[in-house]
């Protein structure tokens, strides 16, 4: 599904990613762990195509197609989803309007008929019920006045509605208390499937108690330093990132 080969990327002329190699297959959940400043968020922005994150070398192959020159909306329509660390507020735009625009933009890209208002309401109602999300969240402006937990739940709702093939969760646990963490993780677990690959980016092991990964990679200094099974996360929790040349915080 996702094959990252020797990926180098710069932000404002500074090289942050220095040769990442990573393969993620459908049905797998991979965790990328690393200290602050290791390039975790940069990796998620490079995969999703944010302006200002420039790939200088290497490839990001997604089902065999190189993403690096593709506009973000095309990547999204092709099934690449980023759950933001800091979901953005959009004043005056009701969440439901935003979701409908997104769903129909993706459907148009796929050559499918757009959903009309009735069909959309039916679909969104089913999704909110599955995820246990209060309906009033749909009427409120996108992320405006949302608590940290609500923002993250809104990300999961968007993921459920857009049904991506590759989901990148960037520090989904940040700003969540333990109850909110559990709700959000349950949402993600509901969306695990054989057709979907999930990349979980996190600083702490605690998220991985809830979203149990198949593989764990340690990212430091812009490179993947080590890969292993889920037990690697526990080791990191215990020993910290010191052995990768990073001082304890």
């Amino acid at each position, binding site marked *: 599904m996702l094959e990252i080969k020797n990926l180098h990327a710069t932000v404002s002329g500074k090289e942050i990613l220095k040769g990442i190699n990573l393969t993620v297959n459908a049905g797998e959940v991979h965790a990328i762990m690393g200290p602050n400043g290791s390039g975790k968020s940069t990796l998620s922005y490079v995969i999703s195509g944010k*302006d200002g994150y420039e790939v200088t070398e290497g490839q990001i192959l997604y089902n065999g197609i190189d993403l690096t020159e593709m*506009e973000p909306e095309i990547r999204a329509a092709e099934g690449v989803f980023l759950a933001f660390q800091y979901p*953005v507020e*959009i004043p005056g735009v009701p969440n439901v309007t*935003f979701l409908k625009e997104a769903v129909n*933009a993706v459907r148009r890209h796929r050559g499918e008929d757009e959903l009309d208002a009735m069909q959309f309401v039916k679909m969104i109602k089913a999704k909110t019920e599955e995820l246990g999300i209060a309906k009033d969240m749909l009427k409120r402006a996108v992320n405006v006045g949302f608590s940290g937990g609500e923002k993250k739940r809104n990300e999961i709702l968007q993921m459920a509605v857009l049904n991506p093939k590759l989901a990148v969760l960037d520090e989904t646990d940040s700003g969540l208390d333990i109850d909110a963490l559990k709700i959000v993780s349950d949402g993600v677990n509901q969306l695990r499937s054989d057709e979907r690959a999930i990349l979980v980016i996190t600083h702490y092991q605690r998220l991985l108690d809830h979203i149990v990964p198949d593989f764990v990679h340690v990212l430091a200094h812009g490179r993947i330093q080590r890969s292993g099974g889920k037990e690697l996360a526990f080791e990191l929790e215990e020993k910290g990132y010191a052995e990768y040349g990073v001082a304890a915080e």
Partner: protein
Amino acid sequence: MSGKAQTIEKVREFTDEKYKYGFVTDIETESAPKGLSEDIVRFISAKKDEPEWLLESRLKAYRHWLTMPDPEWQKPNFPPIDYQDSYYYSAPKSVGDGPQSLDEVDPEILKTYEKLGIPLFEQERLSGIPIAVDAVFDSVSVATTFKAKLEESGVIFCPISEAIQRCPELVKKYMGSVVPYTDNKHACLNSAVFTDGSFVYIPKGVKCPMELSTYFRINAENTGQFERTLIIAEEGSYVSYLEGCTAPMRDENQLHAAIVELITMDDAEIKYSTVQNWYPGDAEGKGGIYNFVTKRGLCKGKNSKISWTQVETGSAITWKYPSCILQGDNSVGEFYSIAITNNYQQADTGTKMIHLGKNTTSRIISKGISAGKSDQMYRGLVRMGPKAVGARNYTQCDSLLVGDQCGAHTVPYIETKNKSAVVEHEATTSKINEEQLFYLRQRGIPTEKAIALVVNGFCREVLQQLPMEFAVEAQKLVEISLEGSVG
């Protein structure tokens, strides 16, 4: 080519198609000779079979107009207007001596309105409330729907040319009472050569049973449209009125200089909404309508209210300041505005709130969006008179810039002669937020659509003021107006 460049290219290809109201209706017309003179003024008056007093008033205005210099204080830049290079009267031949019943209207004209999406038939709308329409085509009203039904409740809704014949006392009493012919050069010209427009009279205690609307269409080439609208709301009455405007795409600039006067008596309310979508000119700034309009309401009675809502997306140049004179004690004035300019469009718009009575209140919410190489000015006056004890104003004025070649300016004028009056002014200017755009694009929404969403959100407070059906239209219009703004 990057995706963004591709988008821009694509939009360029469609630039000439994006203004979907730009078509021309091919019908025979009857025009006055080109140019402006006393004879033309007499010609128009004779065409309408007007009483002597009205001809005299037109001539007085015309003679005064000759002495007035072009206004020079506004921001928009444009070459001097050649008033002799325009037609001041043009009407479809089939209209003959005046508006007819619906089944007599030229099928070509009916087709035009159908294409514009304006219902010129008396049919209940699915959404419930029917809308009565007065259709003004170039210099004449071609049809007015639901007239009979409205008259059952005593409401008069007809072309102003008809009102002059039917209820001359009302017209004589109120026309020019809010906007005198000496007000400004464009209003003065209108007072001399106005051709048609709508007249609304809501009797005492009547809540108008349907939305009223007038649809202005300029069709003929080199023709100015000078419409005149007069709405009178008697004690305790209410009316909601909407106007829409479109014109074909032409390389020459065409002049549209209108006057709208509103009058509310005690406890009466007028809600006046405008969706202005005159042809804005092409992407290089060629052509488009000069929209020079004087709109003013007089809250004559106590506890009366006038509310202006405008969505201004069209015209090469917009120059308008829908205003309220708050004369009656406790009267309320509101101004809600969205102005969107793209390419080379220029807009100088805002409002005047003149507080004369005690405890009068006014509220101004202005949202300006500039894109492309366009330039926009919010200009607003709040004046608290010496007797306006306890008067209050709140002004919020937000500007959003799309791209780095456009401009936004805010010029508030505040004059207060009363110590008890409170005036609040808040203003912001921001660039469209890249983080928001990336968030939306990451969900599959293309850049232009993403901008439209953010802008619609930015304008929401004003869009909510529009009657529901028009709010939906206006949202689409926001999107269309911003096409090609990325780059």
